[in-house]
């Protein structure tokens, strides 16, 4: 099932969505696909890095609370690996200052707290894709 036939013919890029909550993953994937992005989803923290290597995304949308490995662990591993400049948008319902600071210390490109608007999410992904050095 694809998002919609009205999606742009030329894709702006590939997004890897790492999110274990199926309904939020469905909604985000739909929003991005309608905007033309090719979206892959992954729900397990333990194998998330393999998914990054396999899908070679332009942007990663990463939840913090994941089974097996936290979003912080995955972000740290991405920054320490070969794809250290990959833009990462982190989503969390834990919007506390210390979580934001931890994510920033690990080199997150963008940090968004749930609940977010679909428009803000799209804008953030577009912005990150236009800044491949990951600094947003």
């Amino acid at each position: 099932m694809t998002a919609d036939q009205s999606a742009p013919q030329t894709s702006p890029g590939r997004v890897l969505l790492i999110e274990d909550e199926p309904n939020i993953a469905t909604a985000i994937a739909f929003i991005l696909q309608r905007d033309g992005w090719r979206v892959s989803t992954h729900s397990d923290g333990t194998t998330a890095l393999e998914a990054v290597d396999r899908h070679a995304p332009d942007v990663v949308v990463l939840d913090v609370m994941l089974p097996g490995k936290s979003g912080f662990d995955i972000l740290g591993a991405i920054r320490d690996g070969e794809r250290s400049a990959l833009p990462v948008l982190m989503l969390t319902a834990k919007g506390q200052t210390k979580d934001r600071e931890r994510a920033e210390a690990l080199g997150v490109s963008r940090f968004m707290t749930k609940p977010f608007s679909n428009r803000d999410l799209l804008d953030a992904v577009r912005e990150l894709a236009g800044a491949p050095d990951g600094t947003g």
Partner: protein
Amino acid sequence: MPRSMPTGSRIRDRRLELAIKQGALAAKVGISPSYLNLIEHNRRPIGGSLLIRLAEALGVDRAALSEDGDSGLVSAVQAAGAARGLGPDSLAQAADLARRLPDWARVIQAQAQALAAQARTIEAMSDRLAHDPSLAEAMHELLSTVSVVRSTASILAQTPEIDPNWLARFHANLDEDSRRLAEGAEAVVGLFDRKATAGDGNLLPSEGVARFLEAQDDLAGALEGPSGGAAVPDLVAGIADPATRTLAAEVLTRDAADAARLPRPLVEMARTPDDLIDAAQGDMALVLRRMGLAVPGRGLVICDAAGAMIRRKPVAGFPLPVVGAGCPLWPVYAAFRQPGRALAARIETPDGAGWQVHAVAASVTPPKFGTEPVLQSTMLLTRADTPGRAEPVGPGCRTCPRADCAARREPSVLSEPVAPGAAALLPARP
């Protein structure tokens, strides 16, 4: 009756006034005639439930017998006034207010206590919001579900033509997530509701235990005798919060064990802690605990090595801070410098009252080579019955008016200017 007359003399005067024999009065309140004789000659401190029983037997109000009858009330009114910014001249009128309008002074005291309790509640709730794992998990679940509902609802509202399969899926998701949202909201409300109805739920367990111990009339009496420990479950049964109840049971079980080791009749007859050292087989901390808890009119403070007060029994005229540490000049802290050494000192509170203090720090863990002992320091407070040179101390920096104290760590609510000693302790400005 002059305000400065000691409590024992007041009891004796009233008894003679009613022509009651000493033995008859002693029998009526359940103590020995010799002990009453010591009390009447001001050789034993008196307070708590025994003073109440004596006041009832003599047909007077407890305050009429107690030389400290209104000192606590005056301190409370002064603290309430200071918290609202009253100056020294106004604060000095607190004693006059308490004497002339005692009911209104008690209203002020009650209001100040209610405000302090609310402040503690807010602090406890804030702490829980930040650190309670069950609440954090429930809030995380709630926010995640809100996020799905919001995104899905936006898709449905803002996508003009949507594939029927997607439409059906989103409708199903919305139905499922709105149900989750309702359950999550109920879970969060339930968490708050449980904490609010738990009685002591807004207090830390240690605070709840302190409040419970202070509210008991004759707890020490219930724990006396070789089977005193058997009374503990009934005594703590009314405490709603399980953690507080468990902690209170541990404290009372220790008290009962102390009572079995050093019976109350021995403790009541002792004039100083030295009189009990042999009976306690050299356990000086036990002597101080027993004299502090079993004898009315004496105060007790027990601290751990971090300076936290883990046991406090206030005594009229020597206010102990409800939260935070006490005065750094109290011998209970000095005792940590040389564990095992029994300190005897005389101290003076800001109101000029003299106190005889005994303190000792001792290990609460069995000795073992290569292992640091876990220390606790115990301090017994007894009102001095004769004048003499004494070291000035306070009740704790927040409510201490001594402006020139080198040990001050924070400004007092009783005085505006920061003392010179405090300035040295504050971090330097960049």
